[in-house]
């Protein structure tokens, strides 16, 4: 919940914003930045190892952790109205729906295309 909507809250800056918004702690910002750079190094590093088909999932996993850090701290979602997180996640979920079903279909009809192409070559 938004801690600074409480007018008696003595957090630094709560007064300056009229209490309507959360003010980020600089130490948190720097820590998040350090973590993001570290994770970038990690994702570059692991890309040199071969995990077979798992590479893309490792890369996406690291990217999602990074995206989560940006959204929670830089974009203040952690301190914001819960509904904004719901909005954000709804968007991601519908992207997943779109991507998932389209992917499922193309993977299903691809063998048909390949069979056809091979029959044309003969």
């Amino acid at each position, binding site marked *: 919940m938004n801690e600074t909507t409480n007018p008696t809250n003595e957090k630094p800056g709560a007064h300056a914003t009229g209490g309507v918004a959360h003010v980020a702690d600089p130490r948190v910002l720097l820590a998040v930045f350090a973590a993001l750079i570290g994770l970038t190094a990690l994702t570059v590093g692991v890309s040199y190892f071969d995990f077979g088909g798992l590479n893309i999932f490792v890369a996406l996993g690291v990217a999602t952790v990074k995206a989560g850090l940006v959204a929670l701290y830089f974009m203040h979602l952690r301190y914001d109205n819960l*509904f904004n997180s719901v909005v954000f996640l*709804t*968007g991601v979920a*519908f992207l997943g*729906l*779109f991507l998932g*079903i*389209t992917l*499922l*279909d*193309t993977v*299903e*009809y691809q063998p*048909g295309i390949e069979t056809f192409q091979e029959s044309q070559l003969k």
Partner: protein
Amino acid sequence: MATSTADNPTRNYLNDPRGVKSWLFTRDHKRIGLMFLCLVTVAVSLGAVFALLIRTELTLPGPTVTDSPSLYNRFFTLHGAIMIFLFVLPAIPSSLGNFVLPLMLGAKDVAFPRLNLASLWLFAFGMAFFILTLALGGVDTGWTFYPPYSTGTPTAVTTAVVGAFILGFSSIFTGINFLVTIHTMRPPGMGWFRMPLFLWGLYGTAIIQILATPVLAITLLLLVVERTLGVGIFDAKLGGDPVLFQHFFWFYSHPAVYIMILPAMGIVSEVIAVFSRKHIFGYKFIAYSSLAIALLGFFVWGHHMFVSGQSPLVGMIFSALTFAVAIPSAIKVFNWVTTLYKGAIDLSPAMCFSLMFVFIFGVGGLTGLFLGSLATNIQVHDTSFVVAHFHYTMAGGTLTAFLAGLYYWWPKITGRMYGRRWGQIAAGLVFIGFNLTYFPQFVIGWQGMPRRYYDYELVTDIPFITGWQIISTVGGYLFVGGVVFAAVGLIRSLWTGARAPANPWGAATLEWQCSSPPPSGNFDQPPPVGDCYVFDDWEYDEEKGYVRVTKESEDVVST
């Protein structure tokens, strides 16, 4: 006093302030809504001209209006594109919705008035691109712009697609505005389940506008770069996948039909309750079914692609899910019918059009089940059966509900009462004309008459098909005549109509508590919020229309 401005009817949003500039740069949602109303009226007139050209061409086999099949292709493409992008999508939310939404909330404006103005400007800009398309000789791809044909045809695909892209942004901006306004600006005392059902319809619409329209935007953008630069995502010749385009396109365009129908259902829910003078039956079911339609609408897009090379597995999934959408739609119809039961029904024009909606939408919805079923779909795919189904839901559904809403809120928008008889006659003409136009298309479609065909000399049993086609064309002219009759009756009232009271229908939603037409700031004081479907508090008065007779609390005073 909530109604004090009613005593001073000379100053209202229409004349305060004056001047062309005050209209073009207004941030008043009422003026923006009214300008949207004018623009969509122009669009629907243009679309209707093409509709009549198509109908006349199909009356008899062989050339009728034109001997050029490619010109016919432009007719149906322009009819479809104009009607979809410039009329049925924006008609209810952007015009009537814009006007009514803040009033129903007792608010002074939508959350972002400047964004709202931007939406209007973008709409006009997108419309200009469509006019440019017309000037460049039109476009012949069908409104769906399927590649590879659309990447190769020499007609003005690019301008039409850019136009649709811009209109998409207009739609997104309206959606953002509505969603935020409904979330943050409901007055104290109006919880989610005390909201008028029209707002639930708009809320569902806004969800779809926000989640689906961006996908259309990127699809159209890719189509433009594919056409101009040869970037191959969709065209198989360039290494692309045409079925992928159809997934992209229908991920937007199927939910988009619920952008067209949800606000229509909202209007019907309001009108039926008011003119039955009964509390709406099953409020929560209607409200939840709006959300259910909005969300389920995203799970069924593949039913447009049953014969497009989509895999059988996904086809079956989509077919099953398609049947599920029928449930919330049916819930609404049952609740409307139950609201009518034992109601004190007043057959005002708005009510006539709403009743028509329930019947026509019922037919449209039930024939949708034929199309959602895999086996029958293959039989009737791309026949006039599809055309008939689509028009029963979109023309018979959205257009009649739009007219119902227009008749319902006309006194609020213009401050004038219209001739009741004119509206009833118009409703009769539209009903007869509409069914004469589209019912025959179910019949001939089932017999194999393909859609989008210029000629049907090669179809078997020509006399049978021709007979029905003639009926359909006659009906088409009657239908358009009915709509024109309605428009004339309404416009006539601007000069001849009596001054409208604040609440001519005895409705309990908040927009009827400010004067007609409303002052620029809507309400001097926030109106008292009550149950928006309890009509017992309002009684008819010869001079003032319906006035409030019971006191809900100390500060509610009837004048």
